[in-house]
């Protein structure tokens, strides 16, 4: 079963960090990724540019509307994700709890909807 682990954190907290602190967090993420690759849970993962770089797109009556910024202004912003394979929600929760951002922000665990095979 696949789960998407969405990492939400307040960007303003991250902005206030020193270079050394940032380096430490980067290292923690590297270690975490290596660990879940080794355990066979890792399917993918990326960090995202800050929401100041986000564009939201909607199509209304065939017309594409773009707005600057994220879909919704929230206290914590989506900053990255991991796509993992886990045997059940308990394992997915354990994986989520290991993400460094779980200590400073929140991880949303979303099961991936199974799709029928395409011919």
């Amino acid at each position, binding site marked *: *079963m696949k789960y998407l682990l969405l990492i939400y954190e307040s960007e303003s907290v991250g902005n206030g960090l020193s270079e050394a602190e940032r380096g430490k967090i980067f290292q923690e993420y590297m270690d975490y990724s290596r660990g879940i690759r080794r355990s066979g849970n890792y399917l993918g993962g990326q960090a995202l540019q800050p929401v100041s770089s986000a564009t939201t797109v909607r199509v209304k009556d065939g017309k594409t509307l773009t707005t600057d910024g994220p879909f919704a202004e929230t206290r914590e912003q989506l900053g990255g994700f991991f796509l993992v394979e886990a*045997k*059940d*929600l*308990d394992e*997915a*929760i354990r994986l989520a709890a290991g993400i460094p951002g779980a200590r400073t922000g929140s991880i949303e*665990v979303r*099961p991936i*909807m199974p799709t029928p095979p395409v011919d």
Partner: protein
Amino acid sequence: MDFEALYREERPRALATLIRLLGDFDLAEESLQEAFAAALQKWPRGEPPRNPRAWLVSAARHKAIDRIRRERSLAAKTAEIAYLGGGAVSPSELADEPFPDDLMRLIFTCCHPALALEAQVALTLKTLCGLSVEQIARAFLVSPATMAQRLVRAKGKIRAARISYAVPGSDDLPERVDGVLRVVYLVFNEGYGDVRGRHDLCREAIRLGRLLRTLLPSSSEVGGLLALMLLHDSRRAARHDKSGDLVTLEEQDRSRWDRGEIEEGRLLAEEAVRRGGVGFYALQAAIAAVHAQAAEATLTDWPQIAALYSLLLRLHPSPVVALNHAAAVAMAEGLERGLRLVEELEAGGELAAYHLLPAAKADILRRLGRRADAAGAYERALQLVTSDAERLYLERRLREVSGAG
């Protein structure tokens, strides 16, 4: 044969096994219902089977397979029936205690922390206690449609997020047991806090407590919670007067307390304390046991209660526990001393919206004979109180301290 008793006794375990075998809550509940209906027809006429649960599980499984055959398209069907292992359940597979872990699986799944607390409660009452959607809706003062939706969403999440049907590993077990106890205690309090007529919830919670105790006999918190519920429930007949008004512990007619429940609760509380590792529930049970031992309110061993509250306060610090501690200190060590503790809490501000703070203060002031101050505190409590029963009690006290004399 007492079919109602058999249903109550066998239903949770049979259902727990069926959910594992069928992998679907609704299918398991519906087929078990059908199996019970078949048994009701069949058993009174002949000998009931030696192992009714095995019979029910087996019959329900066949009914589930029939249902799938009827309802699903051929292609989907073949795969699913293969998964269900279409054949008969072997007798050895369904020995006297076929799958002792299944009930644990069901309890831990219903009380999984990834489900909203209210959904955990609803699911527990529906599957483990066998209450109808209407009964649960009535108990929680929501419409049956809302409650039905809550259950559908919970079962949907179990399926979609793959909440496993499993007993947690030893690492997670203590935390998960706490979660289960929280649900059971919430069910109990929901029934106990109500003035009239929701004793069914208390009864279900006590039944769940007994069940948990058979499954986790060595947990002092499981025993402690069961003891706590029994000791509180023992006062049921004395808690309200003829007109339904609340009677405080101090004023209750103790001859109306249920001796059987007190004895059982007291033994369980003692056992929990002896076992060590006492926590939130065992300590509260111990406090309730001390109250239960006093034949009259004036004979209450307040120093022991104050000591137990101070232990509880150390282990589970909260303003509400601190308030109870203060009230016990007032009785054990002197009213002035208790009053000072209550005033410290008042200054802390955390309980600013909690009616029992001014109510406790008012009671101490009343005992001190400071009637005008007591009246002021009762008035403040009345501004905050939400339950009608407590309002009546506070109004009566206010009249007493405001009256002539």
